[in-house]
């Protein structure tokens, strides 16, 4: 316990330095901004900002990028409540009751309660990370290559099970991602693989290019195609007054916030989990157990508080597998790994012991960031509403410009821009063919890691693949992966899975 406080003291020392406070602020503001704006999410934004982080210190870079992710969870609810459009995919369920509350003139309490719920969840999940990450990292330090390989298999399988749409396609996307990750020089033999004689490809396909192309550009193109069909979005801008919920509201929401926080924290840790899954699950749970279930969908404040608490909790606890195991659980975490590697930090359990400043500083910054969000956001809601009236035709050229300058600056050559454009096209094809890009990016980041660990494991076992089953931890992880696959293809689960994701 004493150790914990000492560590947290180091963390707050780092997080409260003037420079890091500044980047934390930039991160949460940007996060809120893109959370408010529909059609641009944290994945695309972090991808865009990766090149900028070259110039920052590792800790400042990670603090800023983390701020974008949980900041977006705050911003997303504003749009959901006022416009009935999810600003962020994890706010989809917030629309259901939040917008109804706004129509009844209770937009203020809905916004206030979602911010308060998010803050409570943020505080709790920060504590969860501080408590659970160190022991988990201890365990992970004992992992050998066989365990790591199995862990990656489990992580990737879990990500495909939780992806919406066809399971076969999701697994195919993971494998395609792994293969694309292998392009470039093979560490063991020094052979430049699949570079087709292009020298720029010897270092591998640029991670920023893939992420920005598949998530950023493809998103813009799909949005432009959509906006041609649908009319201008209608904005529910009434004067939002009285943000503070009443005492009765607080009483009504206590249970919902606690349940949302706990469920969100638990689901965030799972591979493939994160904000999106957490908010869906919390809404479903709340609808089942709440005394107010008759009112759900008609403006029940619990239907706002629970998912908003859960998505924030989930967003933060999904950092646990990243910080302790070096395994990303969702695309945002894959980008965080990318950012760490750009900074020359090998992600994994050793980060905690070798760079305690970075590890604890990031955790402390999450709580600081949450505090900033609550203090800043509520008074600024008027400004965010104004932003929503900016039409997309003005936004997207600006977004494109930042993307292009960012990609160009990676190596000051048009090659990266070209490569990103190419992945933009590929990403658009994925969207049209209903192939989820999230598993692809996870595979892409894990490809080289997995190959290396597989090679080492096989070398240690003298070529016997039985090593993955003979080693108990590895066997358990593989068993869980198989179990996950089996229950997904089982007809009963398949049905509910289809229902659960149909709302998107």
């Amino acid at each position, binding site marked *: 316990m004493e150790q914990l406080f000492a560590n947290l003291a180091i963390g707050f020392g780092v997080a409260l330095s003037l420079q890091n406070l500044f980047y934390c602020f930039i991160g949460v503001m940007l996060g809120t901004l893109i959370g408010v704006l529909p059609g641009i999410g944290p994945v695309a934004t972090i991808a865009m900002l990766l090149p*900028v982080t070259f110039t920052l210190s590792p800790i400042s870079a990670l603090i800023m990028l983390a701020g974008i992710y949980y900041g977006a969870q705050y911003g997303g609810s504003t749009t959901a409540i006022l416009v009935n459009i999810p600003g962020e995919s994890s706010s989809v369920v917030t629309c259901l009751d939040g917008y109804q509350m706004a129509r009844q003139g209770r937009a203020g309490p809905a916004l206030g309660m979602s911010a308060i719920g998010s803050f409570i969840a943020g505080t709790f999940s920060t504590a969860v990370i501080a408590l659970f990450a160190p022991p988990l990292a201890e365990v992970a330090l004992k992992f050998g290559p066989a365990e790591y390989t199995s862990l990656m298999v489990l992580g990737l399988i879990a990500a495909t099970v939780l992806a919406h749409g*066809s399971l*076969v*396609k999701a*697994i*195919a996307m993971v*494998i*395609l991602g*792994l*293969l694309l990750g*292998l392009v470039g020089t*093979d560490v*063991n*033999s020094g*052979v430049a*693989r*699949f570079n087709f004689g292009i020298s720029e490809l010897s270092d591998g396909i640029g991670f920023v290019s893939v992420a920005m192309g598949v998530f950023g*550009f493809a998103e*813009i*193109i799909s949005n*432009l*195609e959509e*906006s041609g069909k649908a009319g201008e979005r209608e904005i529910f801008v009434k004067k939002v007054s009285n943000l503070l919920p009443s005492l009765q509201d607080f009483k009504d929401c206590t249970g919902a916030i606690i349940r949302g926080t706990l469920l969100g924290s638990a689901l965030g840790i799972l591979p493939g989990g994160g904000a999106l899954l957490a908010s869906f699950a919390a809404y479903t749970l709340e609808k089942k157990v709440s005394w107010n279930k008759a009112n759900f969908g008609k403006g029940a404040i619990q239907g706002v508080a629970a998912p908003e608490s859960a998505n924030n909790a989930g967003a933060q606890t999904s950092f646990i597998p990243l910080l302790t195991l070096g395994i990303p659980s969702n695309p945002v975490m894959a980008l965080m790994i990318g950012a760490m590697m750009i900074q020359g930090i090998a992600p994994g359990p050793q980060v905690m012991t070798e760079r305690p400043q970075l590890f604890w500083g990031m955790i402390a910054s999450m709580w600081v960031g949450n505090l900033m969000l609550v203090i800043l956001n509520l008074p600024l809601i008027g400004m965010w509403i104004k932003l929503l009236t900016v039409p*997309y*035709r*003005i936004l*997207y*050229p*600006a977004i*494109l*410009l930042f*993307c*292009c*300058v960012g*990609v*160009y*600056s990676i190596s*000051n050559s*048009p090659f*990266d*821009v*070209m490569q*990103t*454009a190419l992945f*933009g*096209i590929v990403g*658009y*094809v994925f969207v*049209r*063919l*209903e*192939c989820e890009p999230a598993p692809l990016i996870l595979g892409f980041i894990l490809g080289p890691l*997995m*190959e290396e660990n*597989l*090679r080492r494991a*096989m*070398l240690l076992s003298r*070529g016997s*693949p039985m090593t993955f089953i003979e080693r108990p931890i590895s066997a358990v992880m593989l068993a869980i992966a198989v179990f996950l696959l089996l229950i997904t293809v089982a007809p009963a689960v398949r049905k509910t899975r289809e229902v659960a994701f149909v709302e998107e």
Partner: protein
Amino acid sequence: MKIKNGKDFWAGLMFLGFGIGFMIASRQYPMGTAVRMGPSYFPTVLGGLLTVLGAVVFFRAFVSKVHHSIEVFPFRWTLLVAGGILAAIMYASAGWWAGLGMGRTSILLQYGLNALAIFVIMAAFGPRPLVVIMISVVLFGYLLKPFGLVIATGVLIIVSAWGGHEFKLREVLIMFVVLAAFSVATFIYGLALPINIWPDLG
């Protein structure tokens, strides 16, 4: 046999293509053994898996309960033929350009026409926003060094705005001025990126 799910049909073909492609490309590297895996071992295994999964998706397209038209992407004959002809001309004349005696200009012209051929072919299959936006991005990438940030920004903004559904010249021009000023201030003065503001005449 009738194709019921066009999206699965194309997705299956795509995965099959990648799977088989990676397996073939891996053959030029040493395979190694299970104990000491060569550079080709893991990609070959993955390529094989992807091929199998691609085949599953492909055949599912014929029995799927979900119905999607086979025409997932638009298709324009005229552009495909035009792009094909241009590409053929450029391929045949590949050696001729350098001998034109115009130095760098002729090579740039050759590159430009090559790119045009690729884009025209692409435009045959892609929707308008995709083609226009990707052209604007690539133009930006190639114009940035020789022409500087301001002009490259202008081209990116104007071309990409033209890819949307509404194009208001006044609005686009205002956007250009604001964004050019902003990007010069942030990227060149703020982040000190090594980019020219104006064309490099030296």
